[in-house]
């Protein structure tokens, strides 16, 4: 579980996060949504330890990040997996090299043990024939799957995804969403996803945090988001006519 207590983060004069408090539970897919400039990416980077908040604290299963030593912070980061928006695969390495990288860096496993583990995770993300291909030789969807495989190869406790569906077609986006949810439940990890994709919100939003102007505007589940009267949330989530109709149908059905 990740507990965030009243975090503030500024860059120069502008305060991006103005006191966000929330909890992300283990074994659930937690989504952060909000308009561009609402502070989602800064919030995610604070969770990852790439930015340190000026005020407030972030606790990872009882460990407060700001009170850890440099080595303890690096050790904690080894418990994190991250899927970046652009996948962030290492260009100079093959798919297999990318997935093996964390194992080579942080474990004392033999070559065959590493090979076995890599085969397992690549099979888990449905990538069987791409071992020797370079990132530039595979599609965007496959790159995302490699990024997921690299993120889970060390059995992380925390998985972070920054817009995992961006640039993907709707079918592939659903596959990636489902894969992340299955992995979250299967590995019992705390997953936090930063997204703009409303399909993801509806499909896998077991907990949704809505940020507005650096503040928590609303939080709840994908079931509750249909019922909420919060104008900011409804304006953002139901900005398209399709989603407005879906919501209307849902409310009529419930009544």
């Amino acid at each position, binding site marked *: 579980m990740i507990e965030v207590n009243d975090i503030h983060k500024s860059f120069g004069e502008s305060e991006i996060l103005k006191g966000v408090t929330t909890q992300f539970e283990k074994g659930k897919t937690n989504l952060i949504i909000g308009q561009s400039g609402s502070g989602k990416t800064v919030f995610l980077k604070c969770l990852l330890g*790439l930015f340190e908040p000026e005020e407030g604290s972030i606790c990872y299963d009882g460990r407060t990040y700001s009170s850890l030593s440099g*080595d303890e912070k*690096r050790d904690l980061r*080894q418990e994190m997996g*991250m899927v*970046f928006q*652009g996948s*962030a695969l290492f260009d100079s390495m093959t798919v297999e090299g990318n997935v093996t990288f964390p194992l080579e*860096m*942080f474990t004392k496993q033999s070559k065959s043990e590493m090979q076995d583990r890599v085969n397992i995770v690549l099979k888990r993300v449905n990538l069987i024939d791409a071992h020797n291909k370079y990132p530039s030789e595979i599609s965007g969807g496959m790159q995302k799957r490699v990024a997921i495989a690299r993120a889970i190869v060390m059995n992380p406790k925390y998985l972070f995804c920054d817009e995992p569906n961006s640039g993907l077609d709707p079918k592939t986006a659903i596959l990636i969403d489902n894969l992340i949810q299955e992995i979250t439940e299967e590995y019992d990890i705390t997953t936090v996803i930063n997204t703009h994709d409303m399909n993801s919100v509806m499909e896998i939003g077991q907990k949704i945090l809505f940020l507005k102007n650096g503040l928590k505007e609303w939080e709840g589940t994908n079931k509750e988001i249909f019922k909420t009267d919060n104008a900011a949330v409804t304006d953002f989530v139901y900005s398209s006519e399709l989603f407005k109709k879906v919501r209307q149908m849902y409310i009529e059905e419930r009544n």
Partner: protein
Amino acid sequence: MNYLASIGSYFIMIREVFKKPTKWRIMKSLILKEIDELIYGSLGIIIFISFFIGGVVAIQTALNMTNPLIPRNLIGFATRQSVILEFAPTFTSIIMAGKVGSYITSSIGTMRVTEQIDALEVMGVNSLNYLVFPKIIALCLYPFAIAIAMYVGIFGGWIAGVFGGFSTSADFVEGIQLDFIPFHVTYSFIKTIIFAFIIATIPSFHGYYMKGGALEVGKASTTSFVWTSVVIIIVNYVLTQLLLG
């Protein structure tokens, strides 16, 4: 104020490079890869430039020797001194600041833009050690490349002097051996190893701390070349004053 902040950030970066080292098994392969790309991959241009610079120095010296009382072995002497003291270490380093420096800035800058450096940091890898340390170690072999540049430069001077009809082979060889001070070679290698450190670290600094997209990668490469060259020239002046003054 910005310059002072950048200088401060540069020295903080250098300290970070030597912290939390990457596993030797991985570092070894990174160093070998960098030796291949930074040193072995540059030998062609170093040899090419040195050969022709040596030749030009010999021709220029010969053409300026209008007084018949000046001995012809001066052509070999001037070529040796110019190549060993300045052209091989300093001129080649400026060329390397362009070739190797821009490669380092653009490769690290691209990793920054595509979030590959963030990916390393999130995994708990000391990205500065992983990316910059192998380059520093690989460029420790730079004096070997400069030694080759010295030989080839003097050879270029001999070819131009003898086959251009400016000097006899015996005069040229006599000039090469005339008043030879071994410390001049030591001085040259001391300069070279410091230039190597500059070539490895200043472009890395510009790549690592760059912000923006593809356009900024190009701008960072240009800026890194300018600053690497400026620092090489200033350090060259200071070292010459300290070691030979």
